[in-house]
């Protein structure tokens, strides 16, 4: 199934909850309302024509002071899906505000979402509601802040941790 057909199928299913779609050099993207993301992901996985059985990645983008995006929501959570049987891909995005940085967890749909969401929480500070164990994945518990946020100072030094003596 080609990318436009995938996006059309998503629009037909979710209607106005697909906020916008676009494609850039053959990579097709649908921006979905936050309330609809679990429906969209479940539909992508379970629909026979789409059959996105592989969640490739969950990541996020911080649009703080991004030209043209100053007044929009600060974060975007990005889901990359791949269908091994049909060899097609799609990208879903959810926009979240800084003071309400919460997204429902996809770990009920793909177990790998557990760790991917922990990484997004670790690096961007976006909470995944319903996540079974939302701890930092890469950094350590004592780390203060979320380093991939654009307002994290590049030269900030965290206190060194060591074994308790």
């Amino acid at each position, binding site marked *: 199934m080609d990318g436009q057909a995938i996006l059309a199928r998503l629009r037909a299913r979710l209607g106005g909850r697909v906020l916008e779609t676009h494609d850039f050099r053959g990579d097709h993207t649908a921006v979905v309302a936050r309330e609809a993301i679990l429906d969209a992901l479940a539909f992508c996985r379970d629909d026979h024509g789409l059959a996105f059985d592989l969640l490739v990645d969950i990541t996020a983008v911080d649009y703080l002071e991004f030209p043209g995006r100053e007044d929009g929501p600060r974060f975007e959570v990005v889901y990359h899906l791949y269908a091994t049987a049909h060899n097609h891909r799609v990208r879903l995005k959810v926009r979240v505000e800084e003071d309400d940085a919460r997204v429902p967890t996809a770990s009920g749909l793909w177990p790998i979402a557990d760790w991917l969401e922990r990484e997004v929480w670790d690096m961007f500070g976006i909470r995944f509601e319903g996540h079974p164990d939302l701890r930092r994945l890469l*950094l*350590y518990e004592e780390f203060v802040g979320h380093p991939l946020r654009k307002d*994290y100072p*590049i030269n*900030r*030094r965290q206190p060194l*941790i*060591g*074994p308790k003596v």
Partner: protein
Amino acid sequence: MGVGSFFTGKLDEAIGWARKYSIFQYPFVTACCGMEYMATACSHYDVDRFGAGLPRFSPRQADVLFVVGTISHKMAPVLKRIYDQMCEPKWVVAFGVCTCTGGFYDNYATVQGIDTIIPVDVYIPGCPPRPESVIDGLMKLQDKIAAGAQRF
């Protein structure tokens, strides 16, 4: 100078001479410098000429800790614990710029020099250091060992 102190002085010299040719190293390899460490250890450059040919993969049997590669903050407690497990006398070599200063990893994740965690005897800069500079650092360490410069 009495006769007694003359003999203990000679004994220290003899012990230092013996120690500098029996370096049992513990390679704490975390990153790409490990390839250059292997190149130095193998037959072409042959670190065994300096008595350092037998790495011990247990810190309890080693007396020189080679910290080879970038140390992240999450790895820092592990490195400290490895160092604490080594028996005296012990020495530490910082291998590569990442261990010396953090190198170009001036970021949230990397320890800016392992001397913020453990004491370091010899710094070998380079990204990664060539085997010649590793051997140069090793010879400087041998001088230090022979001179009896240790922490107790």
